[in-house]
C-alpha cells in the first residue's frame, strides 16, 4: 500500500536519510527501530510531506505522493501522530477531533469522536476540557484519536508512549492492538520495543539514515546481540 523507493531527505544541508526503501502492506503493522537521530521521525515527516524527500519516490495506494502538500497526502488516507503530540491548546477534546473529522479512507465503518471515546474512555470524561488542560497521556490519546477521525488507511505513529506513566502506556497499547485487529495499517516508532514487537508483523532498524536490519514475526532473529549492536540496549 505504501511504497518508499530510495528516499533521501535533508534539513537544509544536513542529510538525514540516505536512500531508504520500504513498504507497508494493507493492514500490516511495521515497527521502526533505531537509536536517537537515526532518521525515524524524518522518515515519517517525509511520508506525510512535512519534510519532502529530496530524492526518490513514495507511492500510496498506487499514487505518487512525494510531491504533494501535506493536506493532500492526509486526504488520501494517511494519519500522522507526531512525536510532540501538538494538540490544539484552545480547542476542547471534542473540538480537536470534530474540526478535522472526515472519511478520507472511505472506510466501511468510519471512526467518529464517539468511537474514539469508546477506545479511550478517559477522553470521554475529559471531552469538554481544552487541549492545554490535558495530561501528557490524555494528549497522546487525543493525538491518536484526532488522526483516527480522518479515517486513514495508514497510521504513522511517532513515539506514541514517550514519557508516559506505565498505566497510560498500557491503555495506549491496548488501543493500538484494537486498531490492528480492525486491520489498520500502522508504521510506528517507539521506545518500548517489546510492547511494540508484540503487536507488529515486521520490524526494521534504521542506522544513520539507512535500513540496516529487518525481520518478520515472530522475530526469532531479533536476538540480544542484534539489540545490543543496533539499539545499544
Amino acid at each position, binding site marked *: 500500500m505504501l511504497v518508499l523507493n530510495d528516499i533521501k531527505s535533508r534539513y537544509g544541508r544536513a542529510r538525514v536519510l540516505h536512500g531508504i526503501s520500504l513498504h507497508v502492506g494493507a493492514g500490516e503493522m511495521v515497527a521502526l527501530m533505531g537509536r536517537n537521530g537515526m532518521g525515524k521521525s524524518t522518515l515519517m515527516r517525509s511520508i*506525510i*510531506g*512535512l519534510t519532502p524527500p529530496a530524492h526518490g519516490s513514495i507511492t500510496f495506494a498506487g499514487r505518487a505522493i512525494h510531491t504533494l502538500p501535506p493536506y493532500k497526502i492526509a486526504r488520501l488516507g494517511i494519519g*500522522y501522530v507526531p512525536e510532540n503530540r501538538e494538540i490544539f491548546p484552545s480547542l476542547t477534546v471534542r*473540538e480537536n477531533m*470534530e474540526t478535522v473529522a472526515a472519511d478520507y479512507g472511505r472506510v466501511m465503518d468510519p471512526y467518529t469522536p464517539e468511537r474514539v471515546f469508546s477506545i479511550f474512555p478517559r477522553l470521554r470524561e475529559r471531552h469538554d476540557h*481544552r487541549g492545554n488542560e490535558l495530561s501528557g497521556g490524555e494528549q497522546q490519546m487525543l493525538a491518536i484519536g484526532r488522526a483516527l477521525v480522518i479515517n486513514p488507511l495508514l497510521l504513522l505513529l511517532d513515539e506514541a508512549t514517550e514519557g508516559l506513566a506505565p498505566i497510560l502506556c498500557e491503555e495506549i497499547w491496548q488501543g493500538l492492538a484494537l486498531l490492528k485487529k480492525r486491520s489498520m495499517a500502522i508504521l510506528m516508532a517507539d521506545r518500548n520495543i517489546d510492547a511494540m514487537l508484540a503487536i507488529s508483523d515486521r520490524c526494521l532498524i534504521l542506522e544513520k539514515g539507512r535500513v540496516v536490519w529487518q525481520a518478520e514475526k515472530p522475530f526469532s532473529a531479533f536476538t540480544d546481540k542484534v539489540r545490543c549492536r543496533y539499539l545499544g540496549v
Partner: protein
Amino acid sequence: MEVKKYILPTAILCLGLLLPQLLDFFGLQYLLSLATRALIYGLAASSLNLILGYGGLVSLGHAVFMGIGGYTAGILLYHIQAGSRILGLLLPGSFWNSALIAWPLAIVLAALFALVTGLISLRTRGMHFIMITLAFAQMVYFFFTSLDAYGGSDGISLYGRNTLPGLDLDNDQVFYYLCLVILLIVLFLMHRILQARFGRAFIAGRENIVRLQALGIAPLGYQLSAYCLSGAVAGLAGALLVNQGEFVSPDILHWTRSGELMVMVLVGGMARLFGPVLGAVVLLFLEEYLAMYTDHWMVIFGPFLILVVLFGRSGLYGLLFEKGERS
C-alpha cells in the same frame, strides 16, 4: 454562580441602551458623538480581532478596509449632494442616497479588496504578512491623497448622511442606536461563526498550522474567507464612520489608524469577543480626556498600554472579567 455571570453583561447592555438618555439627563450631549465613534471603532477593531486575535494574522493595514468603505459611502454622498455625474452617470439621489445601497456597496468593495490582497498576502507569514498588508494599505492611502477630484489629502466634507427608510439618520440619537444594533448583530454572528467548525478550524490554524495541514485541512481557504469577512465588517465600519462625521479624508486609512485598531484589540483583549469594543471605548475616552490636559496625551497612554499588555495577557477584558477563569 450562573446568574452572577450575567449581571455585568446585562448592566453594560443597559448602559449602552440608556446612554443617550443618561447623557441628556446630565447635560453631556456632546459626548454622544464620541460614544457613537467608540461603537464604530469597536466594530472595526472587532473585525481586526477576528483575524488577529482568533486567526493569528497580524495585519498592519486594516484601516484600508475602513478607508475603502468610507470612501465608497463618501463619494456616493458627495456626488448625490452636488448633483454631479459619477463615471459619467447621473445617479438618482433618492435611490443611491439610501444606506441600503451605499453600505452594502461599501461592504462588497472592501471584501473584494480583501479577497485580492488576501490571495497575495496570505501566502506569507509573520513579519512578511505585516509588511505586505502595510504596503497594500499605504498604496491605497497614497492613491486617495493624490485623488484631487475628491479633495486629495484634505478629503471631502459632506452635507448630511445616507438615508434609511423609517429612520432619521441625521438624528444623532437614532444613529447611535443604529450603530449599537449593528455592532451587536455583527458580534453575535462572529460568535456563531467562531463556534462553528469553520471557526474552530480557523483558530486551530493559528495554533498549529502545520498540524492542521497534516490532518488534511488546507488553511488558506479558511484564512481567506475570514480575511474577506473581516475586511467587509471594517468596510461597514468605515461607511458608518464617514456618515457619523459627515467627512472623509485619507486620514481614515493612514497606517497609524491601523495601529490604533491594533492597540484597541490589544488593550481590550485579543481573541475575546467583547475585548476590542472595550478597547475602543477606553482608547477614545482616554484620548478625549487626556487631551484636555495635555497635547502629549500619548505620554500617559503609552505606559498604560505597556502595563495592560504586561499584566493582562488577554487585555482589560481578561483583567476585569476573567478572574482566574482560564489562562
